[in-house]
């Protein structure tokens, strides 16, 4: 497939057209209490054509990737746009363009690991846990690989070939404490294929020991007190805050639909310590968890500095929202499967690290909490957010105290950002972020730890 052929197929009257061939591949291997009980592989591929005409879109997808199917699919996408035009009767609109071309195929450069080698790796991890921690009632060691391979061409001259892999391992432990199950887990890995993430099982032992230690801490866990406290949000929580509570409100489709951030452009929305960026692909000379060089509309992907020194500067866009708002393109349009239309999606959202040390931040709190591990998170167009917290500790007189039971934190993110008084100088990227806005899609969430005031649900 090449641009020349697409242009040959492009009939007169279509303002914009894109054609995509995509394959998503996944591989799941997992042990439940020492037995390989999850052993599956999946591949899903197909084509998608999307046409923009007179202000409306027509999209058609098919699993048949033959030449004939491509022609039929393009024809039907154009027909769908025409059908919708008969109903919508919108004026002609020209979409903006910042087209780019490139090839971003992140296949590993290391020797491929066989399925047998991967299973043995996982078995070794499981054996380590079983031998060292025989008191656990349930052990789960799962690995999950997702590879998204796309070839996209657009009528405004973009062409992209990409293969973006993610490999993660999920380790969960359950123990019984006074007749009640307690559980804890962590996720390892991230961007890259298996070989890029998992070489020697012993590399993970220290992290696994920490999962167990934190599970044991939960045996003595106390309820958090309900109310608002000075807290240190570990980088994992700060990352999900950046994504869910700030990021979504500054996606232009949310803004057009009335998000609170629409009122704040150019205004102070956070402490001057805060700069928040949706990074396209590279931060500090390192590839981010979800590197996007060209988006699924063929637009050159650029970093979107959403908040700069506390001032709201910019929203994230696809072609349509940029046209509607008269803003520059950012390259945030992405789709998950071959059947999906590109939506405005974050890539790698983070608060820029500050100058403080985590220890200093904890030491500065007399009565509060150090909140570490989120479970899930949801946010609102008002920037009101809720995150489940599966791991946290009391802070008493500047020192860590007992673990707290699972709880929920909530608040209004733009209020919370104004309470930030310290930002740590390190950065952590969550390796397994998935965002579910109509379609699921991998995202990067990261950043430093922040000190702020947070509302905690408790007793």
């Amino acid at each position, binding site marked *: 497939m090449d641009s020349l052929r697409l242009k040959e197929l492009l009939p007169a009257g279509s303002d914009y057209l894109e054609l995509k061939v995509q394959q998503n591949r996944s591989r799941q291997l997992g042990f*439940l209490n020492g*037995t*390989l*009980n999850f*052993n*599956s*592989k*999946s*591949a899903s*591929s*197909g084509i998608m054509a999307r046409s923009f005409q007179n202000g*409306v*879109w027509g*999209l*058609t*997808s098919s*699993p048949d990737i033959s030449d004939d199917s491509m022609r039929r699919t393009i024809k039907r*996408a154009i027909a*769908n*746009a025409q*059908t*919708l035009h008969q*109903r*919508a009767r919108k004026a002609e609109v020209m979409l903006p363009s910042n087209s780019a071309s490139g090839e971003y195929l992140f296949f590993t450069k290391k020797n491929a690991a066989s*399925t*047998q080698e991967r*299973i043995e790796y996982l078995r070794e991890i499981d054996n380590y846990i079983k031998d060292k921690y025989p008191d656990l009632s*349930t052990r*789960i060691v799962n690995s999950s690989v997702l590879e998204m391979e796309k070839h996209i061409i657009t009528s405004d001259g973009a062409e992209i070939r990409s293969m973006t892999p993610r490999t993660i391992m999920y380790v969960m432990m359950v123990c*019984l404490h006074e007749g*009640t*199950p*307690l*559980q804890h887990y962590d996720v390892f890995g991230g961007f890259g294929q298996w070989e890029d993430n998992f070489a020697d099982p012993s590399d993970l032992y220290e992290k696994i020991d920490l999962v167990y230690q934190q599970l044991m801490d939960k045996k003595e866990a106390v309820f958090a007190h*309900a*109310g*608002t406290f000075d807290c240190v949000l570990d980088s994992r929580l700060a990352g999900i805050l950046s994504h869910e509570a700030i990021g979504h409100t500054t996606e232009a*489709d949310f803004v*057009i*639909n*009335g998000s*609170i951030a629409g009122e704040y452009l150019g205004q102070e929305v956070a402490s001057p310590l805060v700069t928040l960026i949706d990074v396209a692909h590279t931060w500090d000379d390192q590839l981010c968890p979800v590197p996007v060089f060209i988006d699924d509309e063929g637009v050159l992907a650029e970093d979107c500095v959403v908040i700069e020194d506390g001032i709201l500067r910019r929203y994230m866009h696809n072609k349509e929202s940029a046209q509607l708002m008269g803003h520059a393109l950012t390259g945030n349009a992405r789709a998950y499967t071959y059947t999906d*239309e590109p939506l405005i999606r974050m890539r790698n959202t983070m608060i820029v690290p500050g100058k403080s040390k985590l220890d200093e931040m904890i030491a500065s709190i007399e009565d509060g909490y150090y909140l570490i591990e989120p479970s*899930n998170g*949801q946010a*609102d*167009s008002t920037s*009101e957010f*809720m*995150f*489940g*917290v*599966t791991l946290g500790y009391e802070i008493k007189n500047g020192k860590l105290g007992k673990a707290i*039971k*699972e709880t*929920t934190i*909530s608040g209004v993110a733009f209020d919370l950002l104004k309470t930030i008084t310290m930002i740590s100088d390190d950065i952590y990227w969550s390796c397994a972020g998935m965002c579910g806005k109509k379609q699921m899609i991998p995202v990067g969430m990261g950043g430093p730890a922040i000190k702020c005031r947070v*509302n905690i*649900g408790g*007793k």
Partner: protein
Amino acid sequence: MDKRKLTQQTLKRMMDLGADKASIRLSASDTQEFNVVYRELNLLRSISTQSMGLSVIKDQKSASVNVNQLDDQTINGAIDELFQSIETADADPAYDISPHQPPSVFEKGTLKPDVDLVCDRLVEYARQCKKDYPSVQFDATMSHHKQHVLFANSNGVDLEENLGYYDFMSMFSAKDGNKMSSFNFTTFSAADLDKPVMDMNFTGELIRQITEQTSTRPIAENFTGDVIFMPFGFMEFLFEIVGNHIGNGVMMKTSRFPDHLGQKILDDKLTLRIMPCSPEMCSESRITTDGYIAEDATIIDHGILRHYLLNLFAANKTGKQRTVGSGNGFVIDPGTTPWRDMIASVKRGILCPRVSQGSPNPNGDFSAVLKNSYYIEDGRIAYPISETMMSGNVIEMFNQMIDLSAETINTGWMKAPFIKIEDLFISKK
């Protein structure tokens, strides 16, 4: 090639290559989807998908693979991979396939959609929304979904299903000057489009509520009181019980009720059924994921546990009998009280259309943000609230049910009434 022939041929190939047991699920779907974006018609999607899932058991080892290209090369490659995968797998006596059942063909819902009507109903919704609630911003999607499934296994199971239904989803919020509400949403499937969607499943009421929620305030003080959950607000709690305590959680040993069949585990006002055979459960399949013909059943009968929701593997793994599988098409029996009368009986409490919550821990403890909710005092809705949390224990909640409404919503995959729970702790910021 004819899909039934392809299914049987592929099954035979897996057995010829040495499988002890094998199963195959071949599915294909077609969707016509109209989208309203930024309050205007914006996108028409025509989506075709297909998928073939293959599973093999050999020497009590198991592997599965899923492909969506159905040419010989892809299928043969997938089978080869299956057998390679089996070699490296572990044996587990829990692996099995469903036993022989009578060959059956199921058909449910609307298989020949009126596509114009799909668009008409969506346009009607958008017009009504803009006319009656001009402050409301919304996106909406309406589609028709058609699915064909063939399931076969080496025990002679041969099942076929044709399923057709309509889907509606809308997300909305309101803006009044520079004040704005939280968003809310509704999503459901329907067997037909006989009624405007605004009249279905309290959609109109939810949108009317959102226009009031541009001016909210926190509650004055923390209190313990009654919460009336609208059905959408209660679903997550129900799925917590289903998943963690009477479903897979039994296998994962996170269940609080691991050996409680026939025992009273929850409030006697709760009767929970699965009704995949009901035409009302229009998007629910008659073929279970583990290859059985799905059946209607009462899971919790006035608080008494009648069935665990375990698929064949989980049942074998736990040593329990598989009875109805992992369950789909959940129905909570309604009560007799009109939902507005439930409010009248509340001294101090909350009307909760939606919650935003972290996953409860295995003990059932949770805390959640009350979204789109109202403070109730002396039997009247007082005002819409913001930044208010609720905490409690899911299992205790299901033992503190005071009342269930006569009205229900039907999402096509679940049917439930409003549910009133007592003694939940409500806290302000």
